[in-house]
């Protein structure tokens, strides 16, 4: 369970987040939607303890991320790119992450297989395409077999096969009672994947509900999104 409450983030005189609050519940895929620059990544970075909130709280199972006893087994996170140094091989990257949580080497090969990166595991990350980099990022997130997945723009850079694969994967993950929170600015890709939708714009939540509630009278989620974020008529 992810609980975010009254999150405010200021950088200098600029207010990036103005009281963001929502929940992501177990057994459901929660889509965190908004245009570029709306504050999605900032919210996720605060949730993961990377950035500090000016005020408000972002909790995972009722505690801040930095206080989790076994972070990798609780939360799998993927932010920009692969999160790996380009001079390392994909496998070497996953190995150090596994070591940090005391996971066996065999787990590295398992996650490489899950994301379909086994054949490229011995190549340096710098030679990866964006799609491969994202798969490596996802592999790192899955290492600890976490109960919660937090993914920033997971479909970004994936080919149609990859997008289809990640949709199925996330649906299965949620079906087994786990929590999935993913951000995106691409609505079309998400409508078939998410159960709940939180829409933010300019640092504020403008809609929060189930997929049906948010889509409402609009023809598609995409129409609803543009109506909510541009204030324009559907």
């Amino acid at each position, binding site marked *: 369970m992810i609980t975010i409450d009254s999150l405010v983030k200021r950088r200098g005189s600029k207010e990036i987040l103005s009281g963001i609050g929502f929940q992501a519940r177990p057994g459901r895929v929660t889509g965190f939607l908004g245009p570029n620059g709306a504050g999605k990544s900032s919210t996720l970075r605060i949730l993961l*303890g*990377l950035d500090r909130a000016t005020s408000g709280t972002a909790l995972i199972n009722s505690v801040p991320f930095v206080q989790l006893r076994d972070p990798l087994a609780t939360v799998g996170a993927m932010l920009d790119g692969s999160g790996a140094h380009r001079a390392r091989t994909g496998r070497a990257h996953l190995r150090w992450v596994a070591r940090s949580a005391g996971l066996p080497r065999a787990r590295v090969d398992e996650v490489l297989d899950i994301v379909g990166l086994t054949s490229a595991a011995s190549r340096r990350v710098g030679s990866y395409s964006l799609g491969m980099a994202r798969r490596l990022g996802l592999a790192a997130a899955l290492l600890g077999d976490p109960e919660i997945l937090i993914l920033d723009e997971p479909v970004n850079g994936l080919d149609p096969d990859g997008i289809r694969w990640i949709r199925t994967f996330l649906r299965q993950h949620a079906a087994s009672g786990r929590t999935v929170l993913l951000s995106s600015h691409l609505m079309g890709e998400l409508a078939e994947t998410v159960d709940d939708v939180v829409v933010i714009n300019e640092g504020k939540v403008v809609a929060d509900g189930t997929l049906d509630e948010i889509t409402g009278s609009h023809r598609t989620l995409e129409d609803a999104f543009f109506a909510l974020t541009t204030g324009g008529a559907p």
Partner: protein
Amino acid sequence: MRALAAEASKLASLPTVWIAMAAGVLVPSVIAAITASSTRSTITRGAATVAGADTGYQELAFGVVGAITLGVVAISSEYSTESAESGGGRQITTSLTAVPARLRFLLAKISAVAIAAAVLAIIASGTTMGVIHVVLGEHAPAMGADDVPRLAGVVCYWVYTALLAFGITVLTRHGVIPLAVLIANTSVVTVTYLLTKITPLANYLPDMAGVRMFIRRLADNTAEISPLTGGLVMTAWVAVLLVIAAVAFTRRDA
């Protein structure tokens, strides 16, 4: 311990770390080979009778560039950005989601750098002194009990220098400038040494004080600083810098 194992694994899988290690061994060994052969011809010509007391140690003072590179890349690699095509991520986000406690992460990294620098210094001392003995043969200064604390001083100096480079790079979050400035200061333009010409206080800068742990005579320098005092002064510099780095690192956004 898991965090330390992860940091050791990171260092071992980074090509620039191996370049730093190679430089740390080769630079002092090659300089030692060159200076020792010129010393040898001086002695055979009869212009001198024995090699100086700092033979080998002078070279090890230069070889610290390997330790500097190690300290810098250990942390700058966390902040180097992936290419825009592959998403523009940085490893620090992965590091801090794997080990979220900032101080624990930093201590693990400091420990890994210190251990690697110590190992490097021991190997470099062995090869450098070995080269001196091979080239000078019977004219090489005899190694005795006196050399044990001096060689320990070399290891200490390399570890401290790696940590100074590390601490500065934690603050800059970028490797190029600290690497260029620190390596230049060690080799091309020794700013800290030139400062000692202006004020005797410059003898207490970290590198000038630190080399006293194993160098007996600095050229054109009359300041008397014992090896122990030099070591303590450098310890203080390293401690203060690492505390500043830790405070900045734990407070700022990653």
